[in-house]
Every structure is written in structure tokens, then in C-alpha cells.
């Protein structure tokens, strides 16, 4: 399932790294022959429905299942009492912020439900239809409690979510570098603004889902789970621990996945409940999350407030930056929920030399869906806060936005550069190679920023419309550890099989990883390489795909393994042929004499070599790559917008991203990542929003209300990929390329809209920029005259 044959583009085409090969995945995706989880059917399969809390905050009373179980077609129902023996907390995977662990989620709500969507029961039925028909027969008494729906109410601790913890303040910490008081005391200019980034999330088009099947008598894997992705080995370990099983008794298999964006593939309550269901009913159980569930059950992200204050000298030297972050964490601690606030604070100084930095960070629990990571976690938010504040400062000081940034960007000759320890659970950040001023210069030139700025300013208001331009500069990490493993094998027919811990959610990993393997093995034909991913049975251990590590870490492991196997095969051929190792090489898919003329027959084909093996171990190699540090991708976004001042609608006239990703394996796919990220980021800035009412009811429960960008909305997006600063931290020289397209969008667009509406007195400090909000800002700045 997870293996797909590469297109044969013939031998002799190395190197493949750096070439825009067409994705081998495309054929099956565009012809509808991919296998997503809901395409899978297993014999004797039944269907699960997760019953969810309709209340944001309530005490759970009596539960009566009698009527439900009498309904035809209902096979089983279980609730929190039934899993009590197993009901361990779902562990943190990342960002162990002290105190946050008190709020870990269990598979079912215990005693109280804490958000609309909190799982309270699972119904297993002959079909999903029957389960939905019978759902209302499950009687649950609720005593409704006051809902906490924002960080300010949360901080008051009047209604406490977790009574054992006794407070809604999950964590609170300060990080700092340098003497912040001195920096502000010495400043000629300071400005403080309060910002808000709205709640939204990744919302992949394919919702979550899984099929679990259990056979206690099986000798290999008792429990099989299809539909895993992102981090299957970690999730298998978590599940084994919760079910008190051996890891080896569980197999996770990845199917095709229709997008993840950080939110899909983390361990959620259902990742326990569905395997548990199959063990209870002794039949395979399928669960497919519907869209309504998805919007209330899968991780939300981004919602935080930030009071940010900047200190500059009169010449614009960046002396200090201090901030107070209040992150709305939702109702429980999810596996990676601490990442967004922690990373927002850590990336607050961004690509700039800042004299002193101090950030206070608090995570506050609310009766809303829990927070997790979404593409560019913390970065989208903080780049908006900081870049907006920089534009305000530039305007106040009469310096151009480009010049103020240029003056303060970390110069290339100061690399590597440390911003210090700005995250409590991590070592100090060290930016690797990068030419940040060069990146800004590139976008300023390509966008003709200064001239465009003057031009739209001269234009003023025409036909009720005003134009503006805006910039945002960013630095962004990728290639997080820990290690990744690869195993490469030569098959009996001389083909190459690659087994990787990297998982795939639509990025094109089967293509780029094969490109890397081909180059690492002297140009093995691309079409001879098969990539196997996301199956815990195929590789002893892997970490998976997140944080721009598919290529940087997973790809590096494949490159090292490919080189090792190539050397091993040459040595083996030397033994078989009595030729010297130094005389031979693996080239274009066969063992050849070094310097052989083109067309000269090879010394041995891989097939012949495979046939000659005494020991299968000769034909395979395993290697790990553990990055010493993270890679840092730098870049900038520029936007040109037109605002209809009578309706508040914003049109994006031009959008440009410049991003230095180090070595680019497949430029077309990197470009696609930038454009796709930008669509999500621009869409988020204008459209996406998860809205709750005062009772904690989610108002955006379908695509009629949760608006995502379609192909109509933002057609004018361009991206320029630079390979200026190769990373020295991995053998490919690659950096993360998945998040640069999204992380600057809020900042660049808020700046552009503020630029357009500045003459009306508008200063954007809050997202999203939907028509209602934009018109309200115009009205508040210039009461009632703009429409005339």
C-alpha cells in the first residue's frame, strides 16, 4: 500500500537532486486510484461513532445505554467506566512545558466534559448510518457549568476546568537574553501594541480516520492499525503502553493521506478508542471522522494575544524587544500543544540582531478544542506581531520599512548566530548559515517595493478603493531531531527498495526521496527505486514527518544509507570479480570499471550481483542520520493589496515569497510548498476562523461557516526559491521548505492593509482581516465618512 513504483525516466540521468521531476504520486492521485483510509474495506468490518459532548463545560452524571443497545444494528457501546482499567493519559510528544502535563487528555472525558466535542462514548454498529440513528438513545445526564471561552476569563480562575490542578493557568514562564531594562532605558523610541491572532487550524481535506483489527491468536501482529501517519512509531509506542501490550504486537500502516499540516497524525483520543473497540467487539472497526467532528475534535491552533514592546535608538538600532504572550490552549494538553506559544516566544526576535529580549509566556486553559501545531506553529503568529510593530516603528521614525529591517537583520558574516535560550525546554537557538539581508534585498528588488510603496501612496483613494504594500521577514527552523533511519535493499532482480521512517501526507516524498537515493547510489535509475514509508513492520524505528524534517533528516539518512550500500556493493563486486575496489564504481545502476567508455558493458549488473550474494545482509544497508542542530530557512513575504473601503473587502493584487531553503532537491515541489503555504496563510488571514459563542458552542462546524481559500480567491502568488545558504548540518545541504510560504502571511498582509488604510487612521493589530472587521476598523478610525 505504501509502496509505489517510480516512473522510469531511464538511466544515465544523474544527478537527480536539483531537478523538477514530476511527482510519481500524481498519476494515482489524479486518476482517483490512491488508497485513502476510507477506500479501505476489511472483511467483517463494523463502524464506530464517537459520541461527543454537546456542552463546553459540564459534569457528567448517569449514563444509560439500555435503549441504545436495544436498537437494531448496534453492536456495542462503551464509556469511560469501561476503559477505566486502561485510561492512561495521552503523553506529550513535544514541548514539555512545566505544569502543562497536569492537563493531559484521557481517551474519554472523566467526571467532566471540557469542550464541545470531548469524547464520552463510542458506539459500534453495523454501519455509521445506524450508529447516527441510534446516537440519541444514549442517555447522558449533564450538569452544565460555566464555560470559559477566552484567556481573560480563564485567568480569573472563577470557573476552573481542572479542579485537581486548581488553576486554569497551565504554565507561565519568562525567558530573556541581555539586559532588557537597560535596553529600554537607553532607547530613544519605544512603542507597545497589543496584538491578537485568531483561532484557526490546518483542516486537511481528508479528515482523520482509521481501521483497527485484532487477532489475539496471531503470531506476528495481534493488533493492526491502518490510517496512521506523521509519527507512527511514537504513536505505536504510546498505544502499546496504554493498552499494556508489547510494541511488537502492534503494526501501524500508513495509507495515502490527503494533507496533515501538523494536525493530522498526532495521538488523539480516537487513536486509543478505535483499537480498544476492535479488541472489545473482536471484529475490525472503521472510524472516519466527518467534517463536523473534524472541526471540533482535531487540533485547533494559533489563538494567542501578545503585548509587544519595541525599543529602538533614534537611528533605528533594535535595542530591545519584550513581550507578554497569553495563549488560549483549549481544554486539554495535546501531544504538541505547547509548541505554538513556546515557539512564538522563541522566534520573537526573528532574523534580527536585538540587543535584549524578554518574553513572558502563559498558557491558559479554556473550554474550547485543545491546541496543537499547525504548519509554522508560533511563527505565523509572532511574525505578524513583530513585523507589524516594526512597520509602526518605521513609520514613526520616518524610516522606510525596508531600510529599518535591513539595518537590523543579522548579517551573513555573523553566522552562525545565537539568539540565546528563549525556550525553556531547549538549548539556545543557533541560526546556521543564512544571508538574511540578501534575502530581503532580493524581495525588495523583485517586488520593486520602495517604488510600489510610493506609487500607491501617490494614488490615494480611487473609486472607494485604496491600495497598500507590506512586507514581512522571517527565519524559520526545520530539520528537528531526533534521528531518522533508512534501510535500502537490492532485490533479487536488481531493483532498489528504500524503507524510511519518514511519512507522507501528499508532499511528494516518494519522488524526492527516490531522487536522493538515486544520486547516493551513483545514478541508480529513478524507475528502479521504490520508497516504502509509514509502516512500523518495515523498519525497526523511525520518527516521521514534521517540522521540515522529511528531506533534511529523512533524506539525509537515505543519502548516507545509499552511499554505504553503494560502497558495500562495489566491495562485493570486487570480491566476485577479483578486481580492485578502487577500480570499480556503482554507476547508472550497475557495477562498472571507473572511466569506462559510455556504452561499455558493465562488469556486473545489480541483478547478477544480487544472485551472487551468499548472505542477504550483503545486499542491504541501514544507516541513521541524527542532526546536530536545526536548519534555519530565511525569507520574506511581500503583498500588494487593494481594500474596498466601503465594504472592507481586501483583494490581493500581488503576493511574492522569497525563501532561501539551502539545497533544493526538487525545485517544482519546493515551489509548490511555498505557493500552497501562502494560500493557507493568506486564506487564514482573511477567511479561516474557528468561532465560539459565549457558551462555548463552536459556531463554525461546517465548510459553510469555516471558510477556506478556494482556487478563486488568491490567484496572484509568486515564489522565488534561493539556494544561497546551504546548510552545513546535513549532507544534503538542505533546509526545511514546508513552512516558509505560510509564516509571513499574517504580517505582510496586516502591513499591506494598514498601509492602504493608514491615511484613514487604521492600524491592524488583530486578525482575521475579514470584511466585517476591516470595515469596523475603518469606522472606528473615521466615523461614518468612508462610505460617502
Amino acid at each position, binding site marked *: 500500500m505504501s509502496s509505489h513504483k517510480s516512473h522510469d525516466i531511464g538511466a544515465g540521468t544523474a544527478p537527480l537532486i536539483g531537478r523538477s521531476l514530476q511527482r510519481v504520486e500524481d498519476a494515482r492521485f489524479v486518476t482517483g486510484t490512491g488508497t485513502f483510509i476510507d477506500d479501505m474495506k476489511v472483511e467483517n468490518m463494523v463502524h464506530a461513532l464517537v459520541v461527543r459532548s454537546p456542552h463546553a463545560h459540564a459534569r457528567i452524571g448517569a449514563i444509560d445505554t439500555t435503549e441504545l443497545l436495544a436498537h437494531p444494528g448496534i453492536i456495542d457501546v462503551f464509556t469511560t467506566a469501561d476503559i477505566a482499567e486502561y485510561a492512561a493519559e495521552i503523553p506529550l510528544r513535544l514541548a514539555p512545558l512545566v505544569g502543562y502535563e497536569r492537563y493531559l487528555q484521557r481517551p474519554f472525558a472523566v467526571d467532566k466534559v471540557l469542550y464541545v466535542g470531548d469524547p464520552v462514548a463510542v458506539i459500534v454498529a453495523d454501519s455509521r448510518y445506524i450508529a*447516527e*440513528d441510534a446516537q440519541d438513545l444514549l442517555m447522558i445526564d449533564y450538569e452544565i457549568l460555566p464555560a470559559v471561552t477566552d484567556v481573560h476569563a480563564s485567568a480569573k480562575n472563577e470557573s476552573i476546568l481542572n479542579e485537581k490542578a486548581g488553576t486554569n493557568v497551565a504554565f507561565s514562564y519568562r525567558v530573556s537574553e541581555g539586559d532588557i531594562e537597560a535596553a529600554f532605558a537607553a532607547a530613544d523610541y519605544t512603542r507597545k501594541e497589543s496584538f491578537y491572532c485568531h483561532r484557526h487550524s490546518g483542516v486537511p481535506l481528508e479528515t482523520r480516520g482509521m481501521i483497527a483489527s485484532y487477532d489475539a491468536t496471531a503470531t506476528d501482529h495481534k493488533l493492526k492499525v491502518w490510517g496512521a501517519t506523521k509519527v507512527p512509531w511514537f504513536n505505536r509506542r504510546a498505544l502499546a503502553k496504554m493498552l499494556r501490550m508489547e510494541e511488537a504486537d502492534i503494526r501501524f500502516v500508513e495509507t495515502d493521506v490527503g494533507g496533515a499540516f501538523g494536525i493530522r497524525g498526532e495521538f488523539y483520543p480516537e487513536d486509543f478508542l478505535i483499537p480498544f473497540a476492535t479488541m472489545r467487539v473482536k471484529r475490525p472497526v472503521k472510524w472516519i471522522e466527518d*467534517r463536523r467532528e473534524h472541526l471540533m475534535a482535531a487540533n485547533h491552533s494559533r489563538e494567542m494575544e501578545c503585548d509587544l514592546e519595541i525599543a529602538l535608538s533614534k537611528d533605528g538600532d533594535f535595542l530591545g524587544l519584550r513581550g507578554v504572550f497569553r495563549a488560549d490552549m483549549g481544554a486539554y494538553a495535546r501531544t504538541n500543544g505547547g509548541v505554538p506559544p513556546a515557539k512564538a516566544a522563541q522566534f520573537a526576535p526573528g532574523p534580527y540582531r536585538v540587543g535584549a529580549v524578554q518574553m513572558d509566556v502563559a498558557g491558559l486553559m479554556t473550554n474550547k478544542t485543545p491546541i496543537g501545531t499547525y504548519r509554522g506553529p508560533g511563527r505565523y503568529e509572532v511574525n505578524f506581531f513583530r513585523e507589524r510593530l516594526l512597520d509602526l516603528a518605521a513609520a514613526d521614525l520616518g524610516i522606510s520599512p525596508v531600510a529599518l529591517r535591513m539595518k537590523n537583520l543579522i548579517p551573513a558574516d555573523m553566522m552562525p548566530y545565537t539568539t540565546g535560550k528563549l525556550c525553556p525546554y531547549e538549548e539556545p537557538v543557533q541560526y546556521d548559515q543564512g544571508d538574511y539581508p540578501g534575502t530581503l534585498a532580493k524581495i525588495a528588488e523583485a517586488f520593486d517595493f520602495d517604488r510600489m510603496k510610493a506609487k500607491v501612496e501617490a494614488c490615494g483613494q480611487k473609486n472607494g478603493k485604496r491600495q497598500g504594500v507590506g512586507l514581512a521577514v522571517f527565519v524559520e527552523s526545520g530539520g528537528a531531531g531526533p534521528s531518522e533511519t533508512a534501510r535500502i535493499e537490492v532485490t533479487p532482480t536488481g531493483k532498489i527498495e528504500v524503507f524510511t521512517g519518514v511519512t507522507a501526507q501528499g508532499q511528494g516524498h516518494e519522488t524526492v526521496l527516490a531522487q536522493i537515493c538515486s544520486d547516493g547510489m551513483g545514478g541508480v535509475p529513478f524507475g528502479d527505486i521504490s520508497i516504502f514509508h509509514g509502516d512500523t513492520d518495515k523498519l525497526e524505528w523511525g520518527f516521521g514527518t514534521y517540522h521540515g524534517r522529511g528531506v533534511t533528516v529523512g533524506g539525509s539518512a537515505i543519502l548516507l544509507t545509499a552511499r554505504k550500500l553503494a560502497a558495500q556493493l562495489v566491495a562485493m563486486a570486487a570480491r566476485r570479480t577479483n578486481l580492485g575496489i578502487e577500480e570499480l564504481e556503482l554507476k547508472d545502476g550497475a557495477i562498472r570499471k571507473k572511466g569506462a567508455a559510455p556504452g561499455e558493458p558493465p562488469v556486473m549488473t545489480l541483478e547478477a550481483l544480487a544472485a551472487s550474494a551468499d548472505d542477504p545482509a550483503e545486499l542491504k544497508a541501514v544507516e541513521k542520520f541524527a542532526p546536530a542542530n536545526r536548519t534555519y530557512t530565511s525569507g520574506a513575504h511581500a503583498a500588494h493589496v487593494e481594500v474596498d473601503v466601503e*465594504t472592507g473587502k481586501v483583494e490581493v493584487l500581488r503576493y511574492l515569497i522569497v525563501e532561501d531553503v539551502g539545497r533544493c532537491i526538487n525545485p517544482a515541489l519546493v515551489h509548490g510548498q511555498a505557493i500552497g503555504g501562502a494560500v493557507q496563510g493568506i486564506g487564514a488571514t482573511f*477567511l479561516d476562523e474557528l468561532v465560539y459563542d459565549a457558551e462555548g458552542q463552536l459556531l463554525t462546524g461546517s465548510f459553510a461557516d469555516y*471558510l477556506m481559500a478556494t482556487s*478563486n480567491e488568491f490567484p496572484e502568488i509568486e515564489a522565488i526559491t534561493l539556494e544561497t545558504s546551504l546548510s552545513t548540518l546535513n549532507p544534503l545541504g538542505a533546509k526545511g521548505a514546508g513552512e516558509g510560504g505560510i509564516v509571513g502571511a499574517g504580517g505582510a498582509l496586516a502591513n499591506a492593509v494598514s498601509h492602504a488604510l493608514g491615511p484613514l487612521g487604521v492600524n491592524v493589530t488583530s486578525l482575521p482581516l475579514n*470584511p466585517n472587521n476591516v470595515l469596523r476598523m475603518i469606522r472606528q478610525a473615521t466615523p461614518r465618512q468612508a462610505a460617502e
Partner: protein
Amino acid sequence: MKPPPFAYFAPRSLDEAVKLIDEHQDDGKLLSGGQSFVPVLSLRLASPATIIDLNRVEGLGGASEMPDGGLRVRGLTRHREIELSPLVARLNPLLTGTMPHVAHVQIRNRGTTGGSCSHADPAAEMPAIALTCDADFVLTSVTGERVVPAGEFFQGVFTTALEANEILTEIRYPAWPKGRRWGFEEMARRRGDFAIVGSAVLVDFDEAGRCGAAKITIFGAGDIPLRIAEAEEMLVAKGLTPETMREAGRITSAAIEPRDDLHASADYRRDVSAVMVRRALEQTASPLRTGVAA
């Protein structure tokens, strides 16, 4: 998000269809294009015991010219057919001009004009156009036909003059007079979304170029599309000038009682209603906004 169980009928004739809906009027629902109704079913916002699918009923679709030059559009006519019909373009250019704003092509391929009007979403375009044009609605039941003017057809959010045993079989648009020009403007979050607020206008200019009659509709600003008679009369009295067009907008803002919802506040709707009306009226200055010459 799976629909509840229901009995399903697929009649082939209108006779059969009206009998079925008469028989099942207490718990039955009609299905035409299904673009609103199927999601409603899947979200279990409605749980009819019986669904009568009109899609196979013969003779229930298509547009034709009436003897008096008016336009007859049968209930099951797909939006896309209206959009692409040269006949509709000739007889009612406002209808043609509005079509690109109705959802997306995929939805227009399936959605029907009768279904849209029967559903009566306050933010939908078709009800607003019918109201602007003073169209008549033909409602058919086992006892025969009755004709209800658009002004009486729309009664509230998702509520119309249709009795539980009636089918909207036809919408009759009066003949398009010489000298008529049209305007249409709407504000939607994304192209193809239901409007937050929108306006359709018709202005009949006499031979001297004066405003002889005006029809102004605002939609998305209340429970049903609304004609703004005060503004219409004002335009006839004062003629079309930049100032009167703005005034028509102000009158509209004052006449409506919009609500807050997820996508916009009542204040927003009030403000932007004025803009929509003014912009729709401004469009009538263009000779492109007259009927296609016969």
C-alpha cells in the same frame, strides 16, 4: 453526517409527483437539485420520513417565451441552463447577469431555480431576482394550480407560501420593457458564497431618458428579500443622480432590520446595504445593462 432513514419515491410525471406529495404532506419533502437539502439531511437538521425526488419528472424543466413576451422558467430548470440560455439573455438579462454569482459552476449544474426559491434562503440570489422582477410563482397540487406573486411568496427564513402538498412548478417573469436597465451587486466572503448582503435593481427609462419606474431589492439584510418602495418612489420623483443613488442607499439602510451572524454584524449589513444599492444603481448608467436588442 449521514442522513436518517427515509422512504424514497422517484415519480416520472407531475401527476404522480403531486399525488405523492399530497399523500406524504405531513412528513414528506421534495428533492430537486439537492444542493441545500442534501447537506441539511446529512447534518440531520431535517428528518423527513419520505423524500420525493423530482429529478425524473418529465416536463418540469426548461425556459420558454410566453405569448406576451414574458419568460417562463419551469421549476426544475438548472441554474446553469438559465445562465447559458440565449432565450433568457434576451428576455431577462438581469437573470442571466446574476447567474455567475450563484454558487459555483458545479452547484449551478445541479441546483434548480425552483429548489432555490422554495428553500428561500434569505441570502440567495434567485428569490431576490424574482422579487425584483415582480415574477409570479405557479404552485401545483392535486387540486390544480394557483399563482402567487413573488411579493407574497417569500414569508420568512426558509418559509414560503407553498402549502405542504404543493410543488413550485413555474416562475413567470413579466416581459422586459423597452428602456429597462439592470444592476446587480453583492458582497460575499468568497466568490460563490451566499451573499452577506446584495442588491438587484431595475430602472425603466422613458424615451426622454427619465426614470419612469425603479425596482430596488435588498437581500441578505433580513429574513426575506425586501423591495425598498420608498427609494423606488424617490428615484421616480427625483431621477437618477449621484446624490439620489446615495440617498436610495441611505433609505435602504434605514428600512432594513438586519441581524448579526457569523459572517457580519447587523451594523455591517446596514452600512454595506447602502453601498450595494448605490453601486447596483450606478451600473444602470451603462448601456451594457440594458436588454439585448431584440
